[in-house]
């Protein structure tokens, strides 16, 4: 419940701060729904940078953070009260359309559906994170280290240390004020904001029922609601990508230059969440230039618009790229290292994911991602609703609003990058809000159809959305006991997260001064001792050169400060099999001599087999003997 209270506070703070900022950034006079959504987006950018500023100053502790957040809230409320916005909001609330929902049967079903999705995904988000590899490996692992150190710093031997960490700053606040549950709720909050954004922007050129339908469809998408309840960043990326494109389209349509700056801030935030967020900078900028050219001289100098948009992007995203460039020489580190003459980062690829790279599979991509999700899902429940595909043909003909070409361009850009890059479905989520807007166009087309077809189509859409929501409800059932306290967190995690068991043993048996080198296990979030991933340590130190092929490994590791080695054996083959699979020669020989030959290392713990992804895994902890 603390986590829910905090996220309500963060949401209110975001809207309040964003509203105060937005008066100077072209938000005044927009439709109320658009104003609230854009204000929320701006406020979340401010929240992330407030945490970063505290981190850089070395003040990452609960009290200073709470004080800064409270001060920002008070300041923004004062600014809003002075500008009359608070009084305006109060009177607008009195006239809010909420009461009409219960009198209009066409509104009841979508509103109830959205409420069900929000409640069930919230329930899952409130459980401690298990089987969420990227969250336990770095989205939460690095914030855990910032919280421990009380400051933001470059985590040594982490391939993720220089990645843009916009969301991880919010996750840091989550860990500091409550725990990993609050961190996950930031993604949940951004999912709600995206749905509201889809509603607010699909209204341009669409009917209100269609816009409402699109917002609910976005929420009731299995991939989206499953991702919303984790401390991942894919829904957050979808949110800011969509807000950037939507704000720029609106800015040009209504000739609001200030809004172009706001759009740039959103684009920069998208780029500060994930490198693929750069699409949100490049594509809208090019589209905007073309749109301004079409408008002719009355639109003013396109260069001025571009400068505002890119200026906003540099303001909200530039820091992370400048930092990576200054430290490593590559602003996109650890990606594109080959372009900058740096060693390639180690990475584990899902080699069994995706389709062959040919024209047939590229053209059939919209069909495949909806109908054959198993090709693209590594096991996180990543799936799109059948409704997207059902309504797609209708969106492609008939009158189209001005934003249509931008939505299609954004989808095409993401789809192309994704198809030739990593075909994991969640990496395509940034295209989903745009697809939801196309579904709104299709929905309006259905409204003009004959009564029997209209009834069939609406029943068809409702059936599939209810089906996916029922699956969510069924899944949430497994999380209810731990959230309500009927099941202990420890028992919940022991049965679901293999790395938790290894971490528990290490936390209760190793001294506080222990330092662990981890082979195979990347999910180190639950470890309360400092730990380093062996693959990155090897990449940076190339230690076989320092030791020599016939030298002793254990004394070298001791000199580096390591006291223990954690080994996850992913097969039934035990230590020898794990070393054989993980290391190439000559590293394998060094490790076999140390761990199997007993030269300087002794076995301290061997776990019983636990199941991960249907495979038994076993953990071994070796003590490195002082020389």
């Amino acid at each position, binding site marked *: 419940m603390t986590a829910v209270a905090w996220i309500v506070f963060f949401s209110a703070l975001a809207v309040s701060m964003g509203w105060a900022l937005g008066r100077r950034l072209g938000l005044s006079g*927009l*439709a*109320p*729904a*658009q104003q609230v959504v854009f204000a929320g987006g701006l406020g979340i950018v401010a929240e992330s940078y407030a945490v970063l500023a505290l981190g850089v100053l070395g003040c990452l502790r609960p009290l200073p953070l709470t004080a800064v957040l409270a001060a920002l809230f008070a300041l923004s409320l004062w600014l809003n009260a002075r500008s009359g916005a608070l009084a305006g909001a109060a009177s607008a609330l009195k006239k809010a*359309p909420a009461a009409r929902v219960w009198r209009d049967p066409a509104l009841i079903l979508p509103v109830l559906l959205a409420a069900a999705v929000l409640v069930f995904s919230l329930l899952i988000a409130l459980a401690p994170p298990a*089987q969420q590899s990227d969250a336990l490996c770095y989205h939460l692992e690095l914030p855990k280290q910032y919280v421990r150190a009380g400051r933001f710093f470059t985590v040594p031997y982490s391939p993720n240390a220089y990645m843009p960490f916009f969301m991880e700053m919010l996750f840091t606040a989550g860990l500091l004020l409550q725990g990993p549950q609050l961190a996950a709720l930031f993604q949940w909050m951004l999912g709600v904001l995206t749905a509201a954004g889809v509603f607010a922007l699909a*209204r*341009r*050129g*669409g*009917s*209100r029922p*269609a816009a409402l339908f699109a917002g609910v469809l976005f929420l009731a998408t*299995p991939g989206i609601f*499953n991702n919303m309840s984790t401390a991942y960043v894919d829904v957050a990326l979808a949110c800011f990508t969509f807000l950037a494109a939507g704000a720029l389209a609106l800015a040009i349509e209504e000739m609001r230059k200030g809004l172009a700056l706001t759009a740039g801030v959103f684009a920069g935030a998208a780029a500060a969440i994930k490198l693929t967020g750069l699409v949100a900078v490049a594509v809208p900028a090019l589209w905007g230039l073309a749109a301004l050219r079409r408008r002719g001289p009355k639109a003013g100098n396109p260069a001025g618009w571009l400068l505002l948009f890119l200026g906003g992007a540099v303001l909200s995203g530039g820091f992370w790229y400048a930092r990576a460039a200054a430290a490593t020489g590559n602003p996109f580190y650890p990606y594109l290292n080959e372009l900058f003459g740096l060693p390639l980062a180690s990475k584990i690829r899902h080699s069994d994911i995706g389709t062959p790279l040919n024209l047939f599979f590229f053209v059939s991509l919209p069909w495949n991602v*909806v*109908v*054959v*999700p*198993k090709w693209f*899902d590594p*096991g*996180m*429940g*990543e*799936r799109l609703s*059948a409704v997207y*595909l*059902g309504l797609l*043909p*209708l969106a492609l003909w008939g009158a189209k609003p001005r934003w249509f070409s931008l939505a299609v361009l954004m989808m095409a850009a993401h789809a192309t990058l994704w198809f030739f890059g990593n075909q994991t479905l969640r990496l395509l989520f940034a295209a989903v809000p745009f697809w939801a807007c196309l579904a709104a166009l299709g929905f*309006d*087309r259905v*409204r*003009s*159809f*004959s*009564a*029997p*077809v*209209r009834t*069939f*189509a609406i029943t*068809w859409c409702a059936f*599939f959305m209810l089906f*996916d929501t029922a*699956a969510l409800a*069924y*899944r949430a059932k497994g999380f209810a006991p731990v959230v309500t306290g009927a099941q202990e967190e420890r028992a919940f995690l022991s049965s679901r997260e293999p790395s938790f068991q290894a971490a528990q043993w290490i936390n209760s048996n190793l001294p506080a001064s222990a330092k662990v080198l981890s082979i195979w296990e990347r999910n180190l979030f639950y470890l309360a001792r400092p730990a380093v991933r062996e693959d990155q340590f090897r990449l940076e130190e190339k230690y076989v050169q320092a030791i020599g092929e016939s030298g002793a490994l254990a004394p070298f590791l001791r000199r580096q400060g390591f006291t223990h080695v954690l080994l996850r054996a992913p097969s039934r083959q035990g230590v020898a099999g794990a070393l054989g699979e993980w290391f190439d020669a000559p590293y394998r020989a060094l490790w076999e001599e140390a761990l199997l030959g007993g030269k300087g290392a002794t076995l301290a713990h061997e776990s019983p087999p636990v199941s991960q*992804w249907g495979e038994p895994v076993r953990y071994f902890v070796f003590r490195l003997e002082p020389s």
Partner: protein
Amino acid sequence: MGLDEPARARGPHMSKRKRPTFTEFAWVAWLLAVGVCYAASVYVPEVRGVLGR
């Protein structure tokens, strides 16, 4: 233009027609195809996919 924009921008009104056109029939066939294939893909391992792990 916002929530209270003029009726012109509120999108098409509900049609009173009873007889479907050929295009509408073709689209219903598409819906059925998508629906059947989507449902068919939800066999047991896929349900695990939808539900997450």
